[in-house]
């Protein structure tokens, strides 16, 4: 079982939090903070597993994380999950994000956290891995987006226009904070399809 999925940036600001067990909002924040402290002080070239997140679960649990440019993707899992499998799942997740957002960067995650949730929901459900095939995930996401668009229809048009205008005025929108190495392939994790 996956106990929690967290995304935060290099400064510990949460970009997505999904807990599959009930924690109060305060505890959730505390877990995020603590996880950030554990993860952020680790070098780049050490292993991606961490034991002993104090707050989530007991000794059975592990933190498995990956660091992409400005973002940490952290999965808290118990012993029924394969460590390398989860690492690969994170990779699939990021690649899917990359595909859905067309060259994903932190800003996409900041402004469209709902979409990230929707993508995640197609991969992990209630703490269990639902789908690992990226194409399948993207197909389902596209179909749902299409539905959303058709629902918005005529009514959605002006809103879209306005938000486009709003974005135009914004100097901070440039998409230059690309997650450059988003498509790193880990040589040791092949043949997961």
């Amino acid at each position, binding site marked *: 079982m996956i106990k929690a999925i967290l995304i935060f940036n290099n400064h510990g600001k*949460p970009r*997505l*939090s*999904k807990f*599959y067990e*009930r924690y109060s*909002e*305060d505890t959730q924040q505390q877990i995020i903070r603590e996880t950030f402290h554990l993860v952020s002080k*680790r*070098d780049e*070239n*050490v*292993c*991606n*597993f*961490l*034991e002993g997140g104090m707050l989530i679960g007991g000794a059975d649990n592990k933190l498995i994380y990956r660091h992409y440019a400005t973002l940490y993707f952290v999965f808290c899992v118990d012993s*029924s999950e*394969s*460590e*390398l*499998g989860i*690492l690969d799942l994170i990779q699939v997740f990021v690649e899917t994000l990359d595909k859905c957002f067309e060259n994903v960067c932190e800003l996409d995650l*900041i*402004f469209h*956290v*709902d979409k990230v*949730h*929707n993508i995640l*929901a197609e991969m992990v*459900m*209630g*703490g*269990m*891995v*639902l*789908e*690992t*095939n990226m194409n399948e995930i993207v197909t*389902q996401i596209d*179909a*749902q987006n299409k*539905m*959303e668009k058709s*629902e*918005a229809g*005529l*009514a959605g048009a*002006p*809103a879209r226009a306005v*938000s486009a205008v*709003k*974005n135009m005025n*914004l100097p*901070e929108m440039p998409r230059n904070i690309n997650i450059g190495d988003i498509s790193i392939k880990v040589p*040791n*994790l*092949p*043949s*997961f399809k």
Partner: protein
Amino acid sequence: MALKIVKGSIDRMFDKNLQDLVRGIRNHKEDEAKYISQCIDEIKQELKQDNIAVKANAVIKLAYLQMLGYDISWAAFNIIEVMSSSKFTFKRIGYLTASQCFYEGTDVIMLTTNQIRKDLSSPNQYDTGVALTGLSCFVTPDLARDLANDIMTLMSHTKPYIRKKAVLIMYKVFLKYPESLRPAFPRLKEKLEDPDSGVQSAAVNVICELARRNPKNYLSLAPLFFKLMTSSTNNWVLIKIIKLFGALTPLEPRLGKKLIEPLTNLIHSTSAMSLLYECVNTVIAVLISLSTGMPNHSASIQLCVQKLRILIEDSDQNLKYLGLLAMSKILKTHPKSVQSHKDLILQCLDDKDESIRLRALDLLYGMVSKKNLMEIVKKLMIHVDKAEGTTYRDELLTKIIDICSQSNYQYITNFEWYISILVELTRLEGTRHGHLIAAQMLDVAIRVKAIRAFAVSQMAMLLDNGHLLAGNMQRNGICEVLYAAAWICGEFSEYLQEPNQTLEAMLKSKVTTLPGHIQAVYVQNAAKLYASVLQQNEQAGNKEAAQEITQMLIDKLPQFVQNADLEVQERASCILQLIKYIQKLQAKDVPVAEEVMALFSGELNPVAPKAQKKVPLPDGLDLDAWINDAPSESSSDDESPKKMIFHEEEQRNVRHRQPELDEDELARRREVRKKEQANNPFYIKSSPSSQKNYQDASGVDHIPVVQIDLTVPLRVPGMPLSDQYLKLEEERRQQQKQDRLKKKKKQKKDKGKRRHDSLHTESDEDITPIHHVDIITEEMPENALPSDDDDKDPNDPYKALDIDLDKPLTDNEKLPVRTHRVTEKAPEVEAASIEDKSKKPKKAKKEKDKKKEKEKKKSKDKISKKQKSAENAEHVHAAPEEETVTPTSKAEESEKPTGEASDLDFWLSPAPVQSKSQSEPHSNEVASEPEETLKENKKEEDAKSLKHKKKKHKEKSKEEKKSKKKKHHSEEEAPESVQNGSLDDEPLPPMSNYCLLAEDSYVKMMYDIQGNLQDGSQVVVSVIFQNQSNGYLKSMEFNVLDSLNTKLVRPEGSSIHDGISVPFQLPPEVSNEARFVFTVESIIMPQKLKGTLTFIVKTDDGSSHEKLDFKLHFTCTSYMITTPCYSDAFAKLLESGELKMCSIKVDGINISFQLLLAKICFHHHFSVVERINSCASMYSRSIQGHHMCLLVKMGDSSVSVDGKCSDSSLLGNLLDELKQTLTEKC
């Protein structure tokens, strides 16, 4: 219209959307909290508006704020509103937010049940998907119970997208509602072979999660998983299955043997590291389970270790980490094969990655032996010095202590070395683990008698230096060590070389800066020390010295009397007064030493931590019995003397028991210890005096240790003490070797050595400990139970899922079908009322009938499954039993096999391999072969064939049962429920109130009507729809033509001609139940309503609209509600005279009275008030509050019923119905 929408959205577009909120927060970095609270106010305004789009916008903003740590539970109701929007866009937002913040404690969550059900059966797969995803996050026991059946239906949905989600969510449902596991399991199992790989993977996932918690219940699935493992190419599925096997093998070693080969193949062939790693892991698990008596698996171990070495040597830190992790598992059973890689592991200690260092440390724990312990600890000590960062250093410290103290100090050959290691560790600054070191010091000093002298000398030194370090120590918790030091010096003061000096050290004024609990120990042990000094001086006749020391104490103790710590204060003043008294006696020349010593005489024994718990209950002591009479409701004055009595008695008891228990205890312990020592070469019998023992120790002359023991300055510059020991130890070992060689030659008898050093070369066991070590085992009470039941957590949520899944389903196990909450009360009341009669059969019957059709299907599934697994088994072994056996049915029947388990045995039993090639077609060969095998292992073969036959037989009987069921369907009979039994001797036949409503080739409807207890004008009609066709039934609409009196309750806004859509679809052969509420005005007359069911049948050829007419019959009985009534209330009711009377008589009845009453109770909702012989009074109440009393008398084959009711026409109609029931069914 369109214009209006556009206008509305133009208004809206200046509302803040999620992006604006995020942007705003980013722009208000200084006053973020203020800005957010502003936004929350805006959101609250938005939530008040009617426009659902505005609400959804507000809710998604809340979801974002939730991530930032804001509690949004106040908006739970608005979230539900958004969830129930018909637009997917909004629905998704609602469910997303709900999944982020709903949990079991959310009170509005119960409002979602119907909404979720509606979404689950939505024609749009994404509506369903989004509902399932949301539900997976916030499912509660109630939701699980109410929706289990709907989700189960979805498991057979046409779209794999829905199927896989439905399968996955079942795990959550099982967790919250364990009763659903057994009914749902057959279908879950079916999904393991789903054509869609995603669904298959989901099913594997769920079963693996289930099996991880309660593996033994899933052993029977092993053949199926084995097949999957050899056929699947999906690495995710493979990994899960292989992990599952890892959990199963400890329970079934035979399974392990079967697995080794395919797993080894996978290890060789796969390129995916993750799969390789899991394979290695499971092979390790298999090897562990086989560890006894399987010598020929060393090849597999070698393969594993070799692969792991490759992982550890890899440059990828992740693989290195995992390699070490897996290595530690091998270590437990095959330490030898790991120990050869010591170099590699020690190398990992230098890794820059802390996780890897910690893993390597774990491994070291298992790799130490007597031979290498000192060396390894030396390495660790170097790391301790090097380690920056206190956490890792603390970890090292605990590991050193763990490694040394493991299994009762098994690997320590020289305790002096260990003590000096501990002393060295006290030099660490800033460690949190002072108390750990202290505990070790105490433990070693108490339990290893031989080391006490050395320990005391070291502790005395610590105390001497203690005051220098006290300032530093205070801050970092290492001062705990002084606690141990003071205690050891005090307790074993007879070993002190210069007790005076130590005593002075303990009374220095610096001591008062230590924490209170340590000072208390100082004071107490100063007194002990004083006592022994006093004795020495008196024995030596040195009166002056004795008086001097007394004076010193009197001078020094007052500083403790003023201490802030109460404990210190109390002890100090107590001791001070005592010593003042001693001084007086000394002045009179009275010898006091003996008496002072008596204060601290006696030896302390280590007591096992669980000892208290394990004190057995003495015979004849009943802890629950009152010692005195139970206290009556007396005044408080009475109680106090009673308490006194209680106390006294208890004390007396203790006093009585204590001495004899102690003697027994000691004798027993001595026995045990002797035995232990005799068996263990490590132990050498010790002479009674521990002090002497140490000095007489064998080979003490060769041991240079003694020289440095106390006299040599303890710190050689540039070399830590423990290193000296390392050197000395090496020398010592060499010396020993030489000695042994000498001895061998000369066959000289050595008094000290009682061990036989015969042929073996130097191995672990050969290294003699430097001291005659007497490790005192921890005390346990006599007859202590060995069981360790204290570790189980009674609140384990997974315990509830420990359910036997192989037992066939019984009739009362089904998923609850959709019910209105209001009607749930009815059966409860019913049940309560007839408790004394026939509670069980009734309930069971009811449920059973609801689910009968489903049940039938399940059993069918089961049979087909069985056939499959049987085939599977045959496929694997191709065993020839089939033809060779002739049935001897009686023997089989007498012995009831548990079907699947025997399948498993069959699958696992080692079949002759050659028979694979000589398979079935050659029957003559087959015929001859059994003869051979019969000779060899007749029994086994017999057993196997028998099982096989049994299985067949069972299938047959099931088939029969099934057909029987079909036949008796209209009579509502199911043989199983009979065994449920009633309190009366006579078994009652099953009964049901469901009667046929209408039937055609597509659908069959059964119905039952029950009154609504809460609302006097409503009745609920439960209709079971059963799909009898091969097509898919959908868009079912249920409609009735209302009468003036009776009306169908329709959703608001629909006209009286609209039907109600049935909230589910029916796949082929599936049934489900829907409930419809009707309002009634008058209930005194029975009534019939005409109605129609319209639906669409979807088959492969296309779909068609169909329609089925029916007539709903509302009998007067259906307005009655079973209500219990006490006889006195009943009598009053009859006496009141307000009731009208009516009677009937029915002839030709030849059923028992018991059955008759049960029938009336069940079919007409009555309860028995009183029963005397063949006469009974019964009571019921209508939904509108009419009382109905019956007096039933049974004569010879005739029954007379007298009824009394406040409404005569109701009574008349009801009696007519009663009469009909009695005549037609008897």
